[in-house]
């Protein structure tokens, strides 16, 4: 009857003080893959939560197969054949993978209502295999890596046999190869008739998968295009509202003296024999597949986890980094991988978040000077260009990209020499990404040495001066950016040893 399987008209959703969706329209054709794009905070996640019944819209209508429907809670949408993979993991860390996949729609014996565990484990194993994952479904969710957890989320959506699957930034924590797996699965789903809404900040994803793309900006519907009908430049302009000339703004700079040197660093079970050196003004990109041990390396460099053996030299002096304070005293800053869990105190105002790393600076004999605190916070928030009303906004009110900028601002409170950035652009929109890169280049030009962990090839090639590739806890290649290309890096990242 209708040519759209799902249609939303004039959806409006306000949160106290925030209008997250303003008269948004959207149409999903049966069997298509539809990309939803837009800046951080544009309202994408809110939009899908309206579809799945997590949020109730303040106005507007939803039609499924031409019929007006009313989705009051997540169960309704599940019953209607809609499944979603949310942006922030919705897993149960204490439970097994199987249970995470089947929670709420467990396989039960039709007469006794008894849960059939063995059947479920088998089915889960099958779903995981389809996704190219090798881990056992009896494992506890919390023992999985971020990427593995993401795969479980996907398996969860598939297991409901939904007609419409919504994926909110599923590739954000995946590397290239894993993303490929995901593409394959998505296409397979499309082939059997599933309609898919796909949210991503990666253009790559969109071009590879989507048939059509809808853009939201500042809570408003901007437009829908066929992916092949619209130019990259126009799309960016639609999303950001301005033109971005340079995504990787590498400025001229001077690479100075060696500031840090790592020799044969080992941590049993995580990484071994890591050696590299780092110079002032240099951006050292560390890449590799998920699970290569990059985060663990960073954590040891920052004193969060002890290394077993090896040496670290800082300004040609051997140093021992036992705890975070040691690293901070040396002038090392760390931007963690998970900004919500590790980087921010979500219930706090921006100013307190920003100054948490620099309490010594805003206090005298332990007494906090609020005036000084506010002025430092304001200065830094403006420096990284956070989109906020005031420094008293709560961190949790910001969108992902802006939250990331606040974490960057936290780093800048200290007198740093070395900055370690772990996946700094994960889940960050193009606009914010370019700003973060701009800040990075700026810092490098000012003489800061930067270690950037990233799984994104263009980023690594675009921003890095030198590139380290890790595989299974070891460095498998070191190269200058001039001599690097995608193939070389991939080969080193996937090289089978033994």
């Amino acid at each position, binding site marked *: 009857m209708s040519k759209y399987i799902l249609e939303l008209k004039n959806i409006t959703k306000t949160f106290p003080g925030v209008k997250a969706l303003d008269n948004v329209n959207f149409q999903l054709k049966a069997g298509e893959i539809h990309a939803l794009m837009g800046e951080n905070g544009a309202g994408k996640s809110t939009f899908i*939560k309206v579809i*799945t*019944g*997590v949020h109730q819209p303040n106005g507007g209508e939803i039609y499924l197969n031409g019929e007006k429907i009313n989705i009051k*809670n*997540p*169960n309704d*949408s*599940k019953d209607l054949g809609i499944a979603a993979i*949310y942006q922030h*993991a*919705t*897993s*149960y*860390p*204490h*439970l*097994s993978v199987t*249970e995470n996949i089947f*929670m*709420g729609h*467990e396989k*039960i014996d039709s007469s006794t*209502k*008894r*849960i059939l565990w063995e059947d479920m484990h088998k089915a889960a194993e099958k779903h995981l295999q389809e996704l190219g994952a*090798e*881990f*056992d479904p*009896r*494992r*506890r969710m919390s*023992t999985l890596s971020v990427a593995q957890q993401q795969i479980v989320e996907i398996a969860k959506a598939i297991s409901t046999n939904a007609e419409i699957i919504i994926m909110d930034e599923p590739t954000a924590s995946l590397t290239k190869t894993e993303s490929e797996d995901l593409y394959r699965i998505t296409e397979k789903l499309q082939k059997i008739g599933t309609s898919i809404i796909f949210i991503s900040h990666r253009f790559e994803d969109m071009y590879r998968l989507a048939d059509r793309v809808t853009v939201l900006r500042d809570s408003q519907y901007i437009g829908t295009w066929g992916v092949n009908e619209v130019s990259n430049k126009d799309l960016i302009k639609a999303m950001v509202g301005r033109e971005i000339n340079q995504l990787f703004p590498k400025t001229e700079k001077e690479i100075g003296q060696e500031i840090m040197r790592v020799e044969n660093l080992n941590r*049993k*079970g*995580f990484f071994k024999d890591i050696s590299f050196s780092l110079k002032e003004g240099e951006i050292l990109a560390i890449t590799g597949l998920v699970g290569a041990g990059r985060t663990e390396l960073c954590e040891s460099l920052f004193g969060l986890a002890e290394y077993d053996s090896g040496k670290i030299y800082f300004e040609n002096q051997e140093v021992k980094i036992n705890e975070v304070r040691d690293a901070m005293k040396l002038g090392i800053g760390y931007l963690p991988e998970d900004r919500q869990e590790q980087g921010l105190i979500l219930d706090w105002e921006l100013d307190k978040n920003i100054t948490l790393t620099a309490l010594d600076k805003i206090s005298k004999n332990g007494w906090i000077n609020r005036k000084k605190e506010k002025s430092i916070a304001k200065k830094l928030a403006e420096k990284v260009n956070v989109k906020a009303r005031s420094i008293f906004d709560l961190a949790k009110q910001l969108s992902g990209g802006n939250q990331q900028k606040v974490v960057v601002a936290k780093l800048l409170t200290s007198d740093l020499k070395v900055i370690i950035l772990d996946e700094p652009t994960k889940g960050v929109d193009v606009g914010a990404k370019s700003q973060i890169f701009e800040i990075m280049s700026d810092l490098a030009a000012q003489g800061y040495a930067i270690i950037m962990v990233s799984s994104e090839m263009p980023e690594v090639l675009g921003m890095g001066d030198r590139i380290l590739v890790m595989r*299974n*806890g070891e460095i498998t290649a070191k190269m200058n950016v001039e001599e690097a290309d995608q193939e070389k890096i991939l080969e080193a990242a996937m090289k089978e040893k033994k």
Partner: protein
Amino acid sequence: MSEKSSENKMSLERIQQIREFSLIGFIVILSIFVQFRNSNFLTMSNIDDLLTNTAILSILAVGMMMVIITRGIDLSIGANLALSGMLTSMLVARYPGLHPIAALLLGTLIGLISGSIIGLLVAKFKILPIIATLGMMNVFRGVTFLISGGKWVSAYQMSDSFKAISTGSIFGINNLILIAVIIYIVFYYFINYTRTGRKIYAVGSSPDSAKVSGIDVTKITWMVYSIMGSLAGLSGVLWVSKFASAQSNTAAGYELNVIAACVIGGISIAGGEGKVTGLISGVLLYGILENALPMINVSPFWQNAIQGAVILIAVIVSALIKRRIGSSNKIRRED
């Protein structure tokens, strides 16, 4: 690859099993030690006493386990138990003909009502469990004082059939043990093999996730406190029947014993974690301590300290074992 996955397969279940084994090992060592000091310890009759005396604690512990899994706590169970025990026994004193089953149901019902009030406060009004149950503990206790008017209900006022609830036996097994076993079987099945049971874990493991995946967190929370209340009510009847006396300060502070048994049994206060099998060993260890200390002639002044030390050692040892397994598991992943 298959080798790797079979190794991984062990991780979740293995950790918990080994933890339980370590606790059981601890129990065995303790038992042997006590047996050495008093040869009456491992006799049938003493084991029977031990189980009978632990039955009520164990029933309460099942309820508490579910509450704790949802990240809650219930400090009101002692007061709830006293209230339903008192009301039921006052009724029994007035109507001696009351059938024991009716008394049990009545006590359970009173407990259910009390528990569902707490559930309402926690689930609907979002009052933190520790506050809601602390407040209601006072209220229940006060109400019990008031309705009893400071009087106790004594053995001679209770009908024989009522007292027989806890002294009687079927197939030579004391009713209390039997009731506890039935409750354990029912809840083992409920927790592990029904959807509602699994939702308890989901709510405790991540309330936010539960909410977005359509689990009615409010309902589950409410249910859990209502079950806890019902079990406390049932225990109230069993208690007054067992001791043939109802006082208004019955079981004061008993909630701490129950919580202690739960945590020894590996129920994590942070929620989401805990198994019935683990709980059984926790309850057993607690019961043995209560039973054994009087039997080995330690000075009464030492009993507290020994009990505290044993609990501390038990939880620390099991934490260390868990940690050991956890870390070797991680290293194993490397190759």
